[in-house]
């Protein structure tokens, strides 16, 4: 259905600028109609009350873009009627899920739309302060957000009494120290408070007891940036894209052996086949599609056959035994060793487990060691079932979902590509040996490569 495709260029919800141009300064944003929504909303002309705007966001069907897909408007309405203190808005920009790099584009290319979204969201939930918690490794994004916030303060789009409306909104950019677990909302809150990033036991949920003990709403960058559009154009306009249950547009960060990897904004429900063929220009010549991780490394993997049936929305993904997640599309080409891929993923989860809950602390390390052994050809026949059993045991037994995020890919890799695991054990070695140039060869438990760019130099 052709009309479901978002219009390219300036009419898009999030990437509403010419790619490749200097789109991030305030001047550029103003030419795209920037801060006009904030002005009209804050002056009281557009919505009668903050509750109106919450209603519009609810009606728009916007679902949280961080991965879980929880309706944003509904989340806002969980704030207590009589809050125990000043309500806080926290923008989760700790985008650490392997394969996901969409928020980075918003922060680097379109930071003011995020800031305007912060102002509007704060107005809607009656908050005067907003924290943008950015992943520590995102140094360019941090720099650009800090510069944009400075610009916005200087131009009077942030601060006390914005546009003379009496509304105050302060935005603080906070850099994380590079921990995946700080993308979990309560882990983020702990980290923001200056403590070790470890998820809190729930309830109470952040809406009741959040950062510094105050009622807190934690939203993804993409959700907040979309609020700008929704507040401007209304729920119906947002709903022109997407499906009944997955409304609007979504960013997908595509990586892997495709001709044009990158971040694309498409309507929800857009077939993956079209995304691959049209936006990404198809697979690299001579490489066939083998498998797909559709929503960041935590979601179950699907094989090529199923991948081509997927539409990029929550329901279609669920029908095909996976999850839309954060929209980090990892395309896997023929010739890639799935055991090695899983090993790489599990090394990440092992490294990033906060170590609080027993099943995750001990389990992530254990399954990584087993997969490494299978990849190295040191495994026995029972190891695959053992691996599956351990992954299954990790699931649902922890405070946060990091253990699940390690267990789901493990289980699905075994389910979908069991023959490859068996081939490793039968042959006593990896059948795909030496298919990659050395710098991509992740075998042998080596440490991640140090980035050559000095700006990224602190990445271990």
């Amino acid at each position: 259905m052709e009309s479901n495709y978002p219009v390219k260029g300036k009419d898009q919800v999030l990437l509403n600028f010419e790619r490749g141009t200097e789109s991030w300064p305030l001047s550029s944003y103003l030419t795209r109609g920037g801060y006009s929504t904030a002005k009209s909303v804050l002056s009281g002309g557009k919505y009668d009350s903050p509750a109106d705007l919450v209603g519009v966001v609810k009606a728009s069907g916007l679902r949280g873009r961080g991965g879980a897909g929880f309706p944003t408007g509904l989340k806002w309405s969980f704030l207590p009627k009589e809050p125990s203190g000043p309500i806080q808005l926290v923008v989760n920009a700790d985008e650490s899920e392997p394969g996901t790099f969409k928020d980075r584009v918003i922060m680097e290319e379109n930071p003011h739309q995020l800031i305007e979204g912060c102002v509007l969201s704060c107005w809607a939930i009656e908050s005067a302060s907003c924290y943008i918690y950015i992943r520590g490794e995102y140094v360019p994004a941090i720099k650009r957000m800090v510069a944009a916030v400075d610009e916005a303060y200087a131009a009077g789009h942030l601060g006390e009494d914005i546009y003379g409306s009496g509304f105050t909104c302060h935005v603080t950019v906070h850099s994380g120290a590079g921990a995946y677990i700080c993308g979990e909302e309560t882990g983020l809150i702990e980290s923001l408070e200056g403590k070790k990033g470890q998820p809190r036991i729930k309830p109470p949920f952040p809406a009741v007891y959040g950062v510094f003990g105050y009622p807190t709403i934690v939203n993804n960058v993409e959700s907040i940036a979309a609020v700008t559009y929704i507040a401007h154009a209304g729920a119906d306009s947002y709903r022109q894209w997407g499906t009944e249950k997955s409304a609007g547009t979504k960013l997908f960060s595509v990586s892997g052996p495709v001709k044009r990897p990158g971040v694309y904004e498409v309507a929800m429900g857009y077939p993956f086949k079209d995304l691959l063929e049209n936006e990404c220009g198809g697979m690299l010549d001579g490489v066939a599609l083998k498998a797909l991780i559709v929503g960041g490394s935590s979601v179950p993997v699907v094989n090529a056959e199923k991948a081509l049936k997927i539409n990029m929305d929550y329901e279609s993904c669920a029908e095909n035994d996976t999850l839309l997640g954060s929209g980090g599309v990892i395309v896997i080409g023929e010739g890639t060793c799935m055991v090695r891929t899983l090993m790489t993923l599990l090394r990440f989860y092992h490294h990033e487990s906060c170590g609080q809950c027993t099943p995750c602390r001990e389990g992530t390390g254990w399954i990584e060691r087993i997969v490494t052994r299978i990849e190295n050809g040191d495994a026995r026949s029972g190891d695959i079932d053992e691996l599956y059993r351990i992954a299954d045991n990790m699931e649902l037994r922890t405070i946060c979902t990091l253990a699940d995020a390690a267990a789901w890919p493990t289980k699905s890799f075994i389910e979908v590509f069991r023959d490859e695991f068996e081939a490793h054990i039968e042959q006593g070695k990896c059948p795909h040996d030496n298919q990659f140039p050395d710098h991509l060869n992740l075998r042998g438990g080596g440490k991640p490569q140090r980035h050559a760019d000095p700006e990224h130099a602190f990445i271990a």
Partner: protein
Amino acid sequence: MSDQVTLTIDGKEVTVPRGTKVIEAAKQVGVEIPHFCYHPGLPVDGNCRMCIADVRTWNARAEKHFPARRPAVTCWTDAEENMQVFTDTDEVKKSRATVMEFLLINHPIDCPICDKAGECMLQDHYMQHDGKRSELREEKIHKPRLKPFGERIVYNGERCILCSRCTRFTAHVSKTHDLGIVNRGDRAVVELAQGSTFDNAYTDNVSDICPVGALTKTDFRFKKRVWFLKHTDSVCGGCSRNCNTVVDHDRAEIVRIMPRRRDEVNGHFMCNEGRDIYKSLAATVRTSAPISRVDELGAGPSWDDALAWAGGKLGEQKKGGKLAVIGSPWMSNEEALVLGHLAGKVCKSAWMDIKNDVIEGYPADDLLHTDDHNPNRAGVIAAGVVPGKKDGKDLAAIQEAIAAGEVEVLLVWGTGLANHYDSVEAMHEAVAKVPVVIQLTDAMDALSEVAQLVLPVRNWAERDGTWTNFEGHTSRFRKALRPHGQARDGFELLSAMCTAAGGKPPVKTFKDARKKLKQDPDSDVREVADGEFAFYKGQSLYRHHSGTTEV
């Protein structure tokens, strides 16, 4: 909303105050939910995941129970009205076995050389909830194994299950913030904060609450296997807090002192000094038989002769002589009752007060330490060792009377009379003016060098009794050790002295004494300590299951 909620746990109905955690509600109906990180004396952390149960909340609108979306940890879940909790379903059992498996894969399982073996929650829960062989084929993770945390605690990172009990103790109970967990995932270890020497008064508690052998005490390491220990309920006399304790001993020797849970007295914890009190006990000089310095008795009189002589001297005072009695805040309530009766009723002396036996000690703080380093001042006063109403003399007045040569017989319980004089010589000079000084004591001191008669009595570890702390809570201590030599029980000895002085003891038995004192029946209560609950009840292996007999 009512303040009470009623829920069912494994089909058993229980009503608890709103806000009670499910794990505590379960205890009330005798359902033990296994756990590691949960401790009733610490804030909840919920990290070990052992106490997961099938918790179903009641939805009034749908009129049915809904299971939790993620399995709930009962240490954190509040009991709710009409909630259903199942702790013995196959799913819950599998969950426990799973957590046990994860905990054990990197645990060294070095029980044969571990001091905690025998009282280790990991061992207990393994026997109860897992019992399988390890499936781990890889190398275990290695961490520091012999890391001193201050002078008294040694940390073994490999045994540690990272339950964070110790860090929560230092953060929320001792508030010294000495310990923290550094690193992430399975590389995490407990570390001493930079610059901390971990030398506060409560450090040993982290070893007690450690569910495994990760934190051991230098004082107890490699001293004794715990299954050889006998356990006797006791009370710490180090200060007027009266922390309830368990004396762990073997034959005639105390090996360690552990805190015993008593919520209104000491909660779950005790101080390091209290644990070390048994060392000073071993260091005291004692006499094993009565000593006399009067010609008619000879140097080493028999008990019968000594009692008859002392009774005679005390009995004479009824005829208008001058008897002064100085009690001690180390006496038990029962002894104080008899001493008060002996002095006031039998001998009709109104000159009676208590001295200050121990004047030096650690400073008071807002956790447990008090500024009175004697255990039972409140109880002894309440039992009647006070200056008489008519013509009564308090300690200062008695001292003046002694100096004036008015006192003819001085009866002193315990040590430390010299504390009330400028020097030992000054005390010796003063009591030289008293013709008859009788001292009943569990330790020799300066007064024992000059007293006409020294009668050895049993110390707190050798006798039964109760002490009452500065807040008025009475605690019971019991006989742990065999008495030293011929030392006699104070209650029995004072009763015998009443008879020898020509009177009658106020009560016949120890039990009657407790009745007469209207003692709080809760002083015998032993609250369920953490980890003490069900599995090995009655077996000598398990901590705190002492075979003490009821009186």
